[in-house]
């Protein structure tokens, strides 16, 4: 590379390319400029507060509730078993609408808050009702 040579060839094209490069690389920085996005704070219902504890520990639920639901779904649909016993020995009925949404019947303020933030759109509600009380 002849570094003593100060001349840039096709300067216009190269500079235009570099501007595009910088704009693309800094996209996340300017896209969010001035927008604060506090992390979601899922709201607990009175019923959940009374129960105090979720099916599993809060740490576990935060990260792994979808895998728990997957296990529940498979266990119910394939093995026809509906009872789930957590490590503390408490028994739950393995049901999305009737268990999770029994305590967390504020789906919009609970599940959806996190999911919108993390950009996940569970397709479960195509079939499962999201507010069992209304239809019961």
């Amino acid at each position: 590379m002849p570094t003593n040579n100060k001349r840039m060839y096709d300067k216009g094209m190269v500079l235009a390319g570099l501007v595009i490069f910088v704009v693309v690389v800094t996209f996340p920085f300017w896209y969010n400029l001035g927008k604060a996005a506090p992390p979601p704070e899922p709201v607990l219902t009175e019923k959940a507060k009374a129960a105090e504890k979720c099916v599993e520990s809060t740490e576990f639920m935060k990260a792994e509730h979808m895998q728990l639901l997957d296990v529940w779904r498979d266990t119910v649909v394939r093995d026809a078993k509906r009872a789930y016993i957590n490590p503390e020995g408490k028994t739950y009925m393995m049901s999305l609408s009737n268990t999770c949404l029994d305590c967390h019947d504020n789906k919009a303020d609970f599940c959806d808050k996190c999911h919108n933030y993390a950009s996940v759109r569970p397709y479960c509600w195509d079939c499962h009702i999201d507010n069992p009380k209304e239809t019961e």
Partner: protein
Amino acid sequence: MNRHYMFSLIAVLLLFLIAYVGVAAVGLEVLFGIIIPYAAIVVFTVGFIYRIVGWARSPVPFRIPTTCGQQKSLPIFKQAKIDNPSTKGNVVIRMILEIVLFRSLFRNTKVKVKEGGKLFYGYELWLWLFALAFHYAFATVLVRHLRFFTEPVPQWLQLLENVDSFMQIGLPGVFLSGVVLLAAVTLLFLRRVLLPQIRYISLANDYFPLVLIFGIAFTGILMRYFIKVDVVGAKELAYGLVSFHPTIPEGIGAVFYVHVFFVSVLLAYFPFSKLMHLGGIFMSPTRNLPTNTREVRHVNPWSYPVKVHTYEEYEDEFREKMVEAELPVDKELPPEPEEPEADETSEEKE
């Protein structure tokens, strides 16, 4: 065993340990989650520009027509407009097709001596196929990661996620691009390790990026499907970085920091490595110049004004002496009646 890939494997393993121990045992979340990522993005951006400017300062004296078709010629010959473009517009088409389809790589051929000593030339498309899969998967994963860096997440990004997870395998739903990325990078690595000819020409700087990208994809897949991390916390950290309010949420999980450390190393390493082909493809003289060597005179831009002494000038200077020594000359001395030999020499020359 080969020191080049062993070196790369050990290097990536060490990087893994550095980040894992640094976070899980020493508690250096701020270093691995904030300081190193910021430093890496600066090194990447500045280094990238530096390399491009360096290339832009290297003169390209001539057109380099490595073309794959008929050059523009007499009207009776059909020009291959994209493979041998003579206008800027066609060059742009050639560049776009090169970048999105890797046409040069598609032309990759293999030579082999078949039974009976017959020479065989054939297409070798596996590399092209895996390179294409690798690059597209990588790009998709990269773009999908923007969900951690944007709030609200743009609509088109949600659409991409829906398409990428349309198989609805398991929970969380499998993203196909992540799996394809891991598979393709593994194959590209194995290709260099298992094929003797390729292994012979491969160096540590060929293996290292592959192993590092394998590490990134591996830790990513690990924390999405196996050792779960707190994704809301991960987004909080990522969003903090790009909104210049860096935070370290509690309890994300050490694998996340390893993943981010690997990415930081990749970014910082990028401008100084073969990965710069990302920028280099735009600067390739064999791809980005129209082949108009017959239409336009290209003067070497670094041509120094050399002082020349042409043969004509030389003869002008020494003509008398040359004629005296009976050396042939192009131009005769001005005719002098006493010397008839001058005619003879001119006849000899014919």
